[in-house]
Structures are given as C-alpha cells and as structure tokens.
C-alpha cells in the first residue's frame, strides 16, 4: 500500500500529520474549517490526491447503504442468540416429522448414485453420513426379511427385504437381470387392493445385474440395483409388491 499514513493506528496522537483527514474528507464529514485546511494540504500532497481518488470509489456504495438504512442502528443489526435456538428447534422438529419423507429422498439419491457415478456425483448422500449411498441401501437390504421371485416372462429378478417400523414397513429392493433404459417404480399392493408407491428409479442403458456368471470380467451393469423406500402399510397388510415401468408395464411381482 502506498498510503500516506503509518500502518498502526495513530501511534502518536499529538503528531497528527493531516494525511488521515483524507478519509473523512472523502465522506464529506469534516466541518468547514477542517475541510478548507485539508484542501490546502491536498494541493501539495500527491499521496493524498491518489488516496482520495481511491477512496472516492467507496462513496457510492456507502451512499447506497446509507440511503437504504435510514436507522443507523440497523446497520449493525445482528440476530439475537434466541433466533439461532429457534432455527435449530425447527430443524429438530422437521427431522422428526420428515423421517418418512426423507427416507424417500435418500432412496432417490441412492438410486441416482447407483444409476451412474456421473449422474449421482452432485448428491453426496448428506443424509446418510455413515454409509456410501449404495452400501446404505444394500445394508438395509441385508438386515430385513427377504422374499424374492424371478418373473416368468420378463426374467427380471426382484427381491424385497422388509422391516417393521412404527410408521409402516421399510422396504429395500434388490433388482437384477433388467436392461435399460427404463424408469421404474416399486408399488406395494395391500390386501384391500390399495396401492402405495415405495420408490421410483431409473435403469441406465447398461442395465443392472446382467452378469451371466460365465467368468467374463465384471463390468458396469453387472451389479444388481439396491434401493429402498417405505410404505404406510403394516407388513401383514401387504399382499404383494410389483415392479413396473412408470408407463405401466409389468416387470416383476413378489407375493407375500
């Protein structure tokens, strides 16, 4: 910095050399006598002239702030600590109320991550910090009670893994031998005929679980899809699960 003043604030209060007046002068807050004195000084001081030139750039910004903030007390307005408490309480309440919804969100994120490292790169599974996305679904799948079926027509291999929850039934799905591109959903069908969507996902062109077991090197598409979601049904009220494409084509049924 080529400024006119020392780096430390006013080390010699009784030896004010007059350069620092350039600041208040730029803001127009010197009284008349001081302003006149500074203008005299300015005529002989190229450093102050250069400094003034630089500081004048600030004045439109400060003027805008001043004009928009008629009450100077608001300039330093800082929220009180109780506001932080309030937002943190909100977060807690939302977490509690939104658990079911969030599970669905996690499932969507997991499906994306499994669907492709590029499509899923932006979603870092913030809601499941302890697992990578795919392994979270896989782990949930391992923990539940499994029922599976291979569809006689489509040959799609679907297994659901269920866990009882206070809110209904947690459903993890393993899906194999499916070729893409497809957009699918997993629907729980109740004994009363009612249908509840558990989760939706996309199958990329490379498909899932297409390993033929012939010893060829594993490639993208060899791994089955793991995803999960929830249904409000109690477990005993579910007659079957259906895997369908979003345009209604049947892919697999798992009877309970």
């Amino acid at each position, binding site marked *: *910095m080529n*400024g006119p*003043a020392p780096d430390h*604030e*006013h080390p010699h*209060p009784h030896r*004010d050399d007059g*350069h*620092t*007046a*350039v*600041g*208040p002068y*730029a*803001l*127009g*807050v*010197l*009284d008349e006598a*001081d302003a006149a004195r500074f203008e005299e000084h300015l005529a002989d001081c190229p450093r102050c002239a250069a400094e003034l030139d*630089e*500081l004048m*750039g*600030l004045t439109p*910004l*400060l003027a*805008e*702030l*001043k004009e*928009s*903030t008629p*009450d*100077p007390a*608001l*300039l*330093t*307005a*800082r*929220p*009180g600590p109780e*506001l*932080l408490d*309030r*937002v*943190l309480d*909100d*977060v807690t309440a*939302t977490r509690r109320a939104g658990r079911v919804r969030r599970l669905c969100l996690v499932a969507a*994120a997991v499906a994306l991550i499994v669907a492709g490292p590029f499509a899923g790169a*932006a*979603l870092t599974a*913030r809601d499941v910090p302890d697992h990578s996305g795919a392994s979270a679904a896989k782990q949930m799948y391992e923990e539940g009670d499994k029922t599976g079926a291979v569809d006689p027509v489509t040959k799609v291999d679907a297994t659901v893994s269920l866990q009882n929850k206070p809110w209904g039934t947690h459903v993890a799905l393993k899906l194999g031998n499916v070729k893409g591109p497809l957009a699918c959903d997993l629907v729980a069908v109740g004994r009363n005929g009612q249908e509840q969507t558990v989760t939706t996902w996309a199958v990329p062109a490379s498909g899932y679980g297409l390993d033929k077991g012939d010893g060829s090197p594993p490639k993208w598409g060899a791994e089955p899809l793991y995803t999960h979601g929830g249904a409000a049904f109690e477990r005993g009220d579910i007659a079957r699960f259906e895997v369908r494409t979003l345009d209604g084509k049947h892919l697999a049924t798992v009877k309970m």
Partner: protein
Amino acid sequence: MRSLYEEHAGPLLAFVLRLVAGDRQRAEDVVQETLLRAWRNADQLRGAAGSVRPWLVTVARRIVIDNHRSRQSRPREVDPGPLELMPAADEIDRALRLMTISDALGDLSEAHREALIETYFKGRTVSEAAQALGVPAGTVRSRVFYALRSLKLSLEERGVTA
C-alpha cells in the same frame, strides 16, 4: 444449519429489516422461515454455483410479500410497503450488493465501525462525533480513514471493486 446461520443470518436480517420498515420481530420470523427453507433445500443449493444469497434474498422477499398479503386480508391492519411494485431482479442485485457492504462493515474493528456510523451514517461531522464519543477529533479522523482503507480491502476480497 449452524454454518448457514453464521454466514447469512446477519446480512439477511439487515435485508429483511429494510423490507419490513424496521419491525424486528417480523424480520426475525422471516429470517427463521427463510433459513429453514434453505436448510431443507441444502442439497440443491449446494449443487448450485456461487452463493446461496440470491436464493435467500428471493425467498425472504417472497415470504415478506406473502405475509403482507395475509395481513392485508385482515381489515383492521394498515400496513405500508408497496413491495410488489419493485422490480424484483434489480432489487435482488441491489440487496446482494448491500449485503456485501454490510459484510465488509462487519469485518471492521468495533472502533472503526463505530467511527463510520457516528460520522457518516448519522450525518455528523468528525468534531460532532468526537464530542458524542468523548474522544479527540484527531482519533475519530484517523479511525474513519483506517475504516475506509479496511473497507476497501475487504470489498475487493469479496469481489466488489470500488
């Protein structure tokens, strides 16, 4: 949520206070609701390039307008503020600029910030401010000077060239 709060609650509050004519209670309610919505949308916001501020400002403004409408529908309350007449895009640019200046003000030392507020923002001369603060005029003068210097640096760091 904490980091969201620490980075944005102050500047956002200053912005909302301007919209609600200084009504602190209302402004804090709006900030609370805005931050909560931001937290709920954290994933999408994180993916977006740049700051979340444009989003925060837009949503906060929306909440103020909606509150304003619901108040208007109650017959007895008289509530000034022709918010909807303002051009939103310009207003948001301006709000972001003002928030950046507020951030820079916040970076100043307490003494420097006070010197600027007591002179420029309160419309007083250095001598008048010195009297109010009970310090020598030369001290106020040099504090104003150093405050401006720091402010300029701080704004440059934030990408605002003055």
